């Protein structure tokens, strides 16, 4: 096997630690991720006591070979896209750490935790106000979107 690149090495380490000690309600599809380190599927459960209790979501992480200098592309996929003011019906997520505020000190685990807490702090289940326009006009890659962060509270 060829030597691992720095991004593969880091992803491998993250995968190992996420499989060994996953945050509550989060599981990574380890088999798929170890087949292809640049595409991960993460299963997430709605936290009990929140609006999303009992729901199951699927997140997709795509990494470039510049990771962690380049942020991962993170979207909700599958049939159940959470209804949330920062989540568009095509699965795109408006979360500043995924673009402008990304830092290489963040990780898949910290992104998952941010998304869990974003969902958990939701007061009312609704789509973003510009959902239909955005979904029609946006690029397939959410990182190409110039986000206007709605608020800093969640």
């Amino acid at each position, binding site marked *: 096997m060829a*030597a691992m690149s*720095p991004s593969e*090495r*880091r992803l491998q*380490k*993250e995968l190992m630690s996420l499989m060994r000690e996953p945050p509550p309600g989060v599981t990574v599809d380890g088999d798929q991720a170890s087949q292809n380190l640049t595409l991960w599927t993460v299963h997430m459960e709605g936290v009990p006591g929140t609006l999303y209790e009992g729901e199951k979501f699927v997140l997709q992480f795509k990494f470039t070979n510049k990771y*962690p*200098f380049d942020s991962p592309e993170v979207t909700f996929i599958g049939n159940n896209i959470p209804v949330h003011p920062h989540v568009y019906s095509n699965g795109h997520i408006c979360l500043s750490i995924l673009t402008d505020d990304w*830092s*290489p*000190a963040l990780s898949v685990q910290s992104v998952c935790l941010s998304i869990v807490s974003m969902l958990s702090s939701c007061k009312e289940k609704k789509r973003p106000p510009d959902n239909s326009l955005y979904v029609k006009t946006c690029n397939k890659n959410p990182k190409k979107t110039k986000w206007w962060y709605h608020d800093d509270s969640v």
Partner: protein
Amino acid sequence: MDLVEEIESLLQNGSNCSLPVLLDSLKSVVTQKICTTETVTADLIDLEFLEDVKNIISYENIPVFFGKTLRDIKCIILDERLREHPIFIMYKGPKKLIISSVVLPHSPLQDREYTSLEEIITAFKKHVDSLSTYFHELERIDRFCTIMEPVEPTFKDDYRRILLDDRIWLHVEVTPEGLASNIHLVGQSELWSNKLQQGLLSWDHDKEIIENIMTVFDLVNFPAGSRKSSTTTTISDDRPMIEPSLCGICLCAELPESPGIPLPLCPNPPCGVYFHRNCLFQWLVACGGGRPPPFGVATGSCPACLESIACCERDD
């Protein structure tokens, strides 16, 4: 009895006789076979070389060990203070020996070919003797200071990074003559760097390096770090044995492609996240638009705590 069986039986019975005796019997078995069969050629066993090994063991009193194959040899040279200096040698062919590694700073003696073990021993004995001040200085530093880098210091490494406080290390290189050179701080602190500036002027090369450091920084003893304490106190203590902190960016300790270990580069005391200089520099340059920064110093905010941080490409 065939040659292989004969040698095998020799080796099995040989457990109670010494190596020179064993070599002698091996030699007699082999010469006998060569005479009778004449199919075994001399390159199969180099008798001259066996003689050489035997001489070294019995007359020079130098221990010789064989590695995975009989071509890999280790000799141990003792210096005047009875420190052990292993030399790893590879047998390339008759009268062709090369040095595969030594636990000494690099010297041109390693780059040439030798015709006999004796020649190697003579050359390195002299070399080791000439390094006695070098060994002494490093030994004193290792004994009294907490060494942050190299992770496992040996005489091969001619530098030490000494813990001054939890953010500042002192880098010292030791010349083969045992003198300190390229002394500088790793980390940013006005206090320590003022002391060093002042102290370098009065550095006394006749005194030991360790003594000079204590005078320069006004120290009575050196701070103990996690690394030192784990080796001096009990092993069951805690987990961070010699495990260096990981880089907050690549999550690794030592990288094959770039030298150096993660350092506490962030000047914000509560942050405490370690980074490889190279990883941090790469990130700060990328944040600044990817162009090479002026004067080779990239600035921006710490990836972990977002406080202002500066990082130069090279560590000097």
